[in-house]
Structures are given as C-alpha cells and as structure tokens.
C-alpha cells in the first residue's frame, strides 16, 4: 500500500519519470532539440533539488524494494549531477558530430538511463535492482551507438550489448541460485534467512554469489571483467563515456556497497579474498595497461579500471570508514572524470575527436586555460596534493591501513606510482613547444562558453576538495 511518505521519498525518481514523459510528449508535438535540451536540464535540476528537499533524517523503507536513506539520496544526487553535466556537454558534442540530425531521442534516452541509475542506488531488492540496471543498460546500448555514421560507435554498441547482456545473464543466474536457496529476493532477506547447511546448498549459494560478483564486476569494469571498457569509451562519444564512467559505474558501486552492507557479507572471508584479488589485479592491470596509451579516452578507461580497484580497497575495509572512503573517493573521481571528458568534448571538432596525445601537444601555450584545467584533472587522477584526488586517496589509504590491509595499501601505492607515469606523459605533451597545431577554432560559441564555465566550476571543485575537504568528509560521514 503506497503511502504519502513513500511518494514523498520517491520524489526524485517520479520527477525524472514525469519530466521524461512530458519531454516525450513535447517532442511528439514539436521537434525542437533546444527545447528538449532545456526540458531535460530542467527535469534533472528539479529532480536534483527534490533530492535535497527530501533529504531524510532517518531511513525510509518502501516495502522490500527501496530504502530511501541518506546514502541512497547522496548517490542519487551524484547521479543526477553527473547526468546534468553530461547533458550540457552532449549538446555541444551533438552540435559537432550530429549536425542536422534528430537529437531529441538522445535526451530522452539520457533521462531514461539516469532514471535507471537513480533507481538502482536506492534499491534493496533484486527486482528493483535488476529493473534499474536494465533500464540503464538498454538505454546505454542506444546512446553508445547513437552516432550511427561512425562504425566505431556501432561496433562499441554491439560489443557492449552482447557483453552486458551476458553479464546480466550471469547476474540473474546468480540471483536465481541465491533465491532458490534463500527463497527471498531482498538483500535484507539474504542476511536474515537460514537454510540447510549441507555442502550442496552451500555450494549453490556461493556459486550464486560468485556469479553475481561477475555480473557486478563487469559493470564496474574490474579486472578480469574489464575488457570492454576501453573499446566502449573510445567508440562512444565523450559525454556518453563520461556517463558510463560516472552514472553507470557509480550506481553499481552504490548497489554493491548497499548489497554487502545489508546482506552483511563483509564477514564472508572467501568473498573478501576474491575482492582482494580483483582489487590488486585491477590496480596493477589498469595502470599497466594505460602506461603507453596514446588515446586519451582509452587511457582514461584503463585508469578508471585502476581507480575502481582503489575504491575496492575501501570497499574491502567494510562498513563505516570503508563506505565513507568509497563515497568520498567516488565523488572526487566523478567530478574529476567529468571534467576530463568535458574537456575532450570542448577540444573536439566535427572532423576529429581530440583523442590522440598529439592533439594535446603544446596546448599549454595555445589554450592555457584548457591546459591548466586538464592538468589539474590529470593531477587529481594521479592523486597529487591540492586536488580532490589526493584527499580521496588519503581517505582510501586511511581506511585500508585502518583495517590493517597492508598488502592492498602497498599495491595502491605502487600502482599509483606507475599511474603517475602516464598522467605525466600527457601533461608533458601539453608542455611541449613543438606540437603541431591541432585545429581549435577560437570562435566563442555560446554553448562552448557555458561549457568552459561549467568546466572551470568542476576544476574549482577539484581544487576546493583538495584544499578544504572537511565539509564533504563530514557529509559522507553522516551517510552511514
């Protein structure tokens, strides 16, 4: 029986859905990309504000399906924020790559995907989780291959479709096994229920959880489920890559955290072992893969593999400090990576998306502002002080060391030193004085100006979090 409080606490999702329907109707009445664009922005903004509005003092459960607590709301806010930025830059990107084509669907799909993400982060039940995930996935397939002229886009879309579907199959089968054993689909139930402790059922249960990890690990692009990431990042347009890196991964991380917390699996030694292995593989593998990568989008993809490896360090540290660290780090990472991809979008021209390291050669002396922002971004990813990335890494290490996971802490340190190398490569490329001119047209269009503004805001946020993170730490501290 849906009650008033339920409706109130689901407001963000409702606004999203409602806004989307309205926008769709609007499109039906009159095709006008700008209008659609604005509607989308308004919807996202409204939804975001509603999150702040409903900011819950105490968790509010809606049946088994949803749990609207601060944690969920915080991640909803993150998702919506990222979606907002992505939308802004999508408009620029569309203008460059998709001139004179129909752009309205794009925004609708974006809203849909966001809705999926927003649903995932508050779900406490396999069904709600699954629905959110699939809404997100299926809209993503389309978004990735939206620029259908570009073979790469199609290839990426198809790859993602097959692989994501596979991973969903793994996830579902895992769920099914767990369900078969416990007879419940809610995270809570998994913790609560007791079942026959014979070897067979135990095997089945463990297998189930293992398969679920596979499915989730795929979404988070953790080694060894990471193969898709670089190709998709490269094939998709920069804003969509940003969307994958932020909304889709962030939402999945939120689910993972919530799932393990609610079903309290942190005590499950073998699981933690699995995650330790995955974390180490991801940290080292990601950074090593990126080491000599000349394509900045692929580089960011690989680095994001490593970064989610880092996050796992906090994740393994378990509830409390671990969750806070993960949330903090994810926030820092989202802001940074959004800045990065937005920058690529701004750099890009219709004939060429600025992805090669050569395109950035000597940028420092041609577009100092852009270059400075990109350097800040890269330094933040590298975890250098004065940037959000450093504080995030500090938080992660603290959680790791606090739990005495020295192995993980050391791997983190070593791998981030490796990582330094390729970030510096790009920074130095920008310092170079012999770079052949990459055609950056300097005609200040309205949209690129707003883009620059947003970008500067993101950059400022990175620095601010790096210098005065106390407020955010307090915030994430209040989540759990």
């Amino acid at each position, binding site marked *: 029986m849906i009650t008033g409080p339920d409706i109130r606490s689901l407001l963000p999702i409702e606004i999203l859905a409602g806004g989307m329907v309205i926008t769709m109707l609007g499109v039906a009445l009159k095709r006008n990309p700008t209008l659609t664009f604005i509607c989308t922005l308004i919807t996202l903004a409204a939804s975001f504000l509603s999150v702040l509005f409903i900011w819950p003092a105490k968790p509010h459960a809606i049946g088994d399906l949803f749990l609207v607590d601060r944690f969920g709301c915080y991640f909803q806010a993150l998702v919506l924020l990222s979606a907002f930025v992505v939308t802004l830059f999508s408009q620029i990107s569309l203008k460059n790559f998709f001139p004179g084509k129909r752009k309205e669907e794009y925004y609708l799909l974006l809203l849909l995907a966001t809705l999926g993400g927003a649903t995932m982060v508050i779900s406490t039940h396999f069904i709600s989780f699954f629905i959110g995930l699939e809404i997100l996935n299926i809209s993503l397939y389309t978004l990735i291959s939206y620029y259908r002229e570009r073979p790469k886009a199609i290839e990426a879309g198809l790859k993602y479709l097959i692989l994501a579907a596979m991973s969903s199959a793994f996830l579902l089968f895992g769920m099914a096994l767990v369900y078969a054993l416990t007879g419940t689909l809610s995270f809570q139930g998994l913790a609560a229920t007791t079942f026959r402790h014979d070897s067979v059922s135990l095997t089945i249960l463990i297998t189930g959880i293992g398969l679920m990890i596979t499915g989730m690990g795929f979404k988070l692009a953790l080694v060894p489920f990471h193969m898709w990431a670089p190709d998709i990042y490269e094939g998709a347009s920069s804003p969509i890559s940003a969307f994958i890196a932020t909304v889709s991964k962030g939402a999945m991380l939120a689910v993972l955290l919530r799932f393990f917390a609610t079903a309290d699996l942190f005590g499950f030694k073998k699981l933690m072992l699995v995650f330790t292995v995955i974390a180490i593989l991801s940290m080292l593998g990601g950074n090593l893969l990126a080491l000599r990568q000349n394509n900045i989008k692929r580089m960011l993809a690989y680095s994001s593999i490593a970064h989610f490896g880092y996050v796992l360090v906090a994740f393994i540290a378990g509830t409390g400090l671990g969750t806070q660290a993960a949330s903090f780090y994810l926030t820092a990472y989202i802001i940074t990576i959004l800045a990065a991809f937005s920058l690529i979008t701004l750099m890009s021209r219709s004939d060429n998306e600025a992805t090669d390291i050569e395109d950035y050669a000597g940028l420092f*002396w041609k577009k100092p502002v852009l270059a400075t922002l990109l350097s800040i971004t890269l*330094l933040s990813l590298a975890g*250098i*002080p*004065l940037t959000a990335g*450093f504080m995030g890494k*500090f938080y992660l*290490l*603290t959680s790791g*060391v*606090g739990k005495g996971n*020295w192995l993980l*802490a*050391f791997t983190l*340190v*070593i791998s*981030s*030193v490796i990582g*330094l*190398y390729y970030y*510096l490569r790009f920074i*130095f490329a920008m*310092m170079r004085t012999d770079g052949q001119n990459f055609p950056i047209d300097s005609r200040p269009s309205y949209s690129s100006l707003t883009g620059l503004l947003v970008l500067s805001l993101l950059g400022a946020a990175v620095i601010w979090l790096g210098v*005065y*993170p*106390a407020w955010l*730490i*307090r915030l994430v*501290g209040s989540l759990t």
Partner: protein
Amino acid sequence: MILAWIILLLMGTGFLAWLTSRWSDILPRIISLAGTLLFLGVVLYLWFTHSASAVPSGNAAAGAWIIHYTHSWIPAFGIHIILAADGLSLLMLLLTAFLGVLSVLVSWKEIKTRVGFFHFNLLFILAGITGVFVSLDLFLFYFSWEVMLIPMYFLISIWGYENRTYAAGKFFLFTQASGLLMFLSILGLYFVHGRSTGVYTFDYEALKGTVLSQPTAFLLMLGFAAAFLVKLSTVPFHSWLPDAHTQAPTAGSVLLAGLLLKTGAYGIIRFVLPLFPQASQQFAPAAMILGVISILYGAKLAYAQTDLKRLVAYISVSHMGFILLGIYAFNQIAMQGVIMQMVAHAISTGGLFIIVGALHARIQTREIGQMGGLWTQVPKMGAMGLLFVLASLGLPGLGNFIAEILILTGSFMASKILTIIAAVGFIAATLYSLRIMQKVFYGTVLKKWEITDFGFREMIVMGSLAIVIIWLGLFPNSILNATQQMVQGIVQQVNITVNGPQNANTLQNASR
C-alpha cells in the same frame, strides 16, 4: 600566524607574477624579486628577534618552539594546520629566503620564455619548502612535501635542458614513490597512536610520545627513511639527482641542491629521530655505512664525469653522505656539523651551479672537454669558481670545512673505522675539485670563446654567496648557537630513550 602569512605571501606573489606576465616580461621578475626580498626581510627579522631566545639554555627540551600557530583543518581526522619554528626551522627559512632571492636573480637573463609561469612555479616551490620546514602536523608536512614537487617538475620539464622530460619524470617518480611510502608510515603511526591513546591526531608533539613495539617502530621508521634517503640522494637511491640537477635550469638546480636535498636531512632530524629513537639506533650502523658509501661513490662518479653540471651534481651526492654519517652518529658535535653542512653545501654547490649556468649561457656547452684556459677571459668567474671549488673540497676557513670537521669528529666517537674511511673523502674531494679548476679555467685555451666576464648582477649574486661561505667558515658560532638548544634536545632524547638517563648524561659528559 606570521608563518602562515609568509607562505601566503609567496603564493600570492607567484600568482601576481603569473598574471602580470601578460603585460610585460620584466614585471614578473620585479614582483618576484620584491616578494622574495620581503620574505628574506621577514625571516631576518624573526631570526634576530628570536635567536636571542634560541641561544643555549641549560635544560633543552626539544619542544621549545619560538613560534607556534595552530588552526583546525580536517577535524574528522584530527588534522590541524600547525606551523611552528625553532632554531633549525628558522635557519632553514633563512636559507630558503636567501636562495630564493638568488634564484630570482640568476633567472633574470637566463629565462626568456614564459617568464610569468616560471616565477609562479619558483615561488610555489619556495612556499612548499617553507611549508615543509615549519609544519608540525604530519599530514600537513606530507602535503607540503608533495606540493613542492609539482612546480619543481614543471620547472625542470619546461625550462630544462635537452633531456628534460626524462629527468623531470624520473625526479617526480622517485620522490613520489618514496613519499607515498612515508605516507603509509604516517598513517600507520596515526592508527597505532590512535588505538593506544584513543586520540586520533597527526600532531607531531602528540605522536612523539607514541609507544611502539620494536618491529612496528622499525618498519614505520623505514617508511620515513625511504622518503628522506631518496631526497637526500643517498646511494643507492641517488640516481634521480644527477639527471634532475643536470637538466634543471640554474635556478632549479640551486633550489634542488640548496633546499630540496636539505628537506631530506631536515626530515630525518625533525621526524625520524624523535619519533623512532630506538629504531633509529638500530638503523644507525646501516645508515652510517650508506653515508660513507655515498661519500666515496659520489666522489668517484664526480671525478669520472665530463659534463660539468653532472660533476657538480655528484659532488652533492658525496656531501650528502657526510650529512647522513653525521646524523646517525647521535652526538651534538656531529649533529651541529650536519646542520652546518646543510647550509654550507647549499651555498657552495649553489655557487658552483650558478657558475656552470653562467658558463653554459655563454658558451652553450657543459662539456669540460670544450673548455680550458678560461681564466684569461673571465678572471672574476675564475676567482669565484676557485673559491667555491675550494669550499667544496673542504678548505679550512670556509663553511664546508667546519661542517665536515664537526661531522667527522662526532662520528669518530661513534665509529672509528667508518670515519677513517670517510676521511679518505677529503683526498677524493681534492681530486675532483681541482680537476674542475684545471679543466675549465687553467690549462691551454682549447676553443677561442668570445665571452664576457660576470656582470654587475652576477657579481652581486656571487659576492653575497662568497661572503656567506667565508662568514660561515670564520664565525660558524653565529649559526651553531641558534640550533644548539634544539640539537641538544634531540640528541639527549635519542640517547635517553635508548640507554636510559644516566648513560645519556655520561655520553653528554664524554663530549664535554
């Protein structure tokens, strides 16, 4: 508070210099010069007002801070902005300010491109180093420790010489890797302290009392040592230094040799010894051996080089060996020698680097094979070169001699064999130092260079350096008195915590 203002002043000047560069190239120079001069003025004021309170007083507690400023930063982790200074810090600040002014001056002609950004980086390096020398919160310390690297990286990688990318990257990776290890140790210490006392804080004074089990202490100590030994370019962690020094622009080399290396020594004295007395005692033999190896290996490599700047760089390696040897001798004489060496080496090597830079600016080469007989054309430069070469070979009457004699006398009490081996370094120093004079200024003129002698600005720079190095040689007490109290405190603490008070006293008497 004054300390915070100093740092802000430097950063502000940096930004200002960067902004004004769009209008003219001379403006940033003037602004930076003014800023650094102001910095120097303030520090000198502090020095003369406070060195009175820093003169040796009977009982020396290492916590006797002249200036102390605390402000909350990240309460959730007990992180505060704690800025404090004692004799050592003040001395280091003085050095920083002095070299800061000089590095602005030497860049006056050398740096022609992107002047604003250059000075921005220069001043941020100074700010970072200042932060390192005055932060008493371990988190803040690490923060500044890292902050000073980035601008230095830019400095090398933009205005450096032919092979700058490689050098800059190497420098950054080495320091980062070791720095992160130290950071792990800091966190470890943080948690150990927190668990035992329930107070989670990065405050140096609080952490100093932490009770640690032997192995834990040793491991944590190693983490710190890693960072500082790399910074001190101790063999075998030295290999970043020759490249960085060689490729950096003159100002960069001066700051690297004069200050960044010193942060390593400072870190050991300020953090490793007080935080881990026992562990340090365990580590001492190894450290002293490393020191001696550095002295000799550095000297050997210096003798082998044909690139003048690389040669000077290896001299630094050798001299830093003395510092390491002295620190781990654990007595006041050696420790004071170390502090003296920190200053003297900064001056002498700085002078040499400036001369090399001036030469390179004039003849576009650093190969000593290309030089020779230059005295005829540049007698002033030759004379200055002679002075600093003599300083670096430890001629009595110049700063380095005081430092080295104190260090060796002190270390002789700790380990006779090692000291005797280290003394061989004197002979080695003679070889490589005189080689510089011979190959560059004496001998037959190989190429007819048309070059001008030092100008007014350069003579100001070199003159001030010369005066300082001679002053250090004749009136070292003016420095030693300022640090006496702090040194006494640390040495006593180390020995007391290890041998118990009575032994410590006997050791004190022994050195009386």
